[in-house]
């Protein structure tokens, strides 16, 4: 199983590869061009330029690893996106991560010298969805965060030639990202604001809904993004299923945190490979690792 990790500076690539990443993904800012990337068009989330990407590609390839570039805005200027893909393709990136079905439609039949991957922002929930996007040349699919392990297993079982990626650390948004309207039109305009990072507060209960403080607290906790999200225990099942890639979220996170997440996933995969412990033992080790490096395991932080 490969580890797919985010980065936003060329200088981050080396430490992330050292920690055990197999593939690095990033967006790229291109001044003066409409955004084609599902993150704010700035260097908090993205590489600053195509020159920086070129340097990163050289570095990553020199280490025998691969690199993906996101063109994953669900809605985009198709012409600009195609032009951008041509540019990054010429820099020998290994994979383009696409979301827009319109863009995939426009790309069909084009000979690309890199692989097409489907972003989680165009969610695939089932085998028929997988087949739909496979017909557009997609060769890797990142499954939504909102599939259970059994549901992931069912899709993975019929993946054919498509690689399947599942989330393992950070970014556990409570809502189905690709179809979410919460992110649109935040009140505090001008800020890079994701409303789910702000707490929701229950004001009224309807019908039979409980109104005691503990019940309300669980509801409020449930629909709120934390930043300790973890699916380390699931690596055991992912390996059993033959999941191809474990994805780590957090392009904008500080490098030390990204490195720690990659190292954690690598350590847990290493444990599986070396010792093949039973699940209970593996899960206990994963929880210990989490507690030592981030914080305690809790139901609200748990991916699966």
């Amino acid at each position, binding site marked *: 199983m490969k580890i797919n990790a985010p980065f936003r500076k060329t200088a981050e690539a080396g430490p992330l590869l050292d920690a055990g990443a197999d593939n690095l993904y990033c967006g790229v800012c291109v001044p003066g061009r409409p955004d084609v990337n599902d993150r704010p068009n700035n260097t908090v989330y993205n590489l600053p330029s195509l020159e920086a990407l070129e340097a990163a590609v050289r570095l990553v390839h020199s280490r025998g690893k691969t690199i993906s570039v996101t063109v994953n805005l*669900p*809605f*985009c*200027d*198709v*012409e600009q996106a195609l032009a951008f893909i041509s540019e990054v393709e010429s820099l020998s990136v290994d994979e383009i991560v696409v979301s*827009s*079905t*319109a*863009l995939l*439609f*426009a790309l069909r039949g084009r000979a690309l010298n890199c692989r097409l991957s489907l972003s989680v922002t165009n*969610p695939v*929930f*089932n*085998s028929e*969805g*997988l*087949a*739909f*996007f496979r017909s557009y040349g997609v060769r890797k699919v990142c499954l*939504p965060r*909102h*599939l*259970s392990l059994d*549901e992931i297993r*069912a*899709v993975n079982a019929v993946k054919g030639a498509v690689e399947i990626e599942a989330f393992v650390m950070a970014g556990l948004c*409570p*809502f*189905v990202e*690709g*179809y979410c*309207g*919460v992110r649109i*039109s*935040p*009140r505090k305009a001008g800020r890079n*604001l994701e*409303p789910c990072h702000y*707490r*929701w*507060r*229950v*004001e*009224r*209960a*309807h*019908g*039979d*809904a*409980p109104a005691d403080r503990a*019940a*309300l607290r*669980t*509801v*409020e906790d449930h*629909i709120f993004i934390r930043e300790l999200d973890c699916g380390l225990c699931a690596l055991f099942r992912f390996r059993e299923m033959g999941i191809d890639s474990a994805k780590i979220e957090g392009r904008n996170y500080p490098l030390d945190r990204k490195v720690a997440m990659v190292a954690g996933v690598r350590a847990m995969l290493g444990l599986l490979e070396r010792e093949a412990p039973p699940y209970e033992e593996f899960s206990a080790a994963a929880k210990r690792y989490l507690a030592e490096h981030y914080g305690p395991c809790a*139901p609200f932080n748990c991916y*699966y």
Partner: protein
Amino acid sequence: MPIEKAVFIGCGEEAPAATAAARIYFGEEACERLLPDPEEAARRVRAWRRGGREVTLVFPPVSETGLDRAARTLAALAREKGLECAVNDYGLLSLAARSAPRPRLVVGRILSRVLARNIHDLSLYSRAEHSGFLDMLRGFGVVRFDFDPFTLERAYPETLGFPMSLIAPYALISFTRRCALARCGNPDVRPFGSCRKQCRGSAFTVRNSALHGVFELVGNKILRRMEPPPALPETVDRLVDYDPLKGLPCRDLKRSKSR
């Protein structure tokens, strides 16, 4: 253009006794766990149709389990000519398109918020690609798009190429497959823990400090009350009444503002 009136009936709900609606939207948009048993769905659909009402069967985005249930429901209704089926993911769209006989497919309001914008993106790029994409959707059997007042603001009806329905007054803003109400008062329930259908007959009004106004948490959905615009696009020829809070008593909660 005459506007068809429809009413949305969730799974487990009864149709209102007195309604002028000529069409019933029946099903679940966001939670496959609430989908009815295929035989039960078929029985209700047949009964409504015998009573002179048309039916649009509504499905949420479905996992492999939900896909199987949807396929069995479509098979149970194979003899119902002209049945509409609203789908909210590409997988079920593909599956339903291969059903025999094929239902009249509606792009549900969850999928339409993305797909309608994709159609518009292609129209700006190339007339041929736009036309090819619409042909592809028609080839799947798509006959209509559903919207609500929230998605209508982003709908680009002039490039859509299909008739539109408007579901109101509650717009579906977002949904999760990790249900808050299933965990309500019991934080140790696993993210995909067992569903006891706690959402039936209960909901919460919620507010987020980063967003204007209040929202309703109904099961795994975040809804917002939004009235339809006074002037509808000409291509809107159906209004669907959707009010899951209708008839539910409401209690204000007095809580400290500690956070």
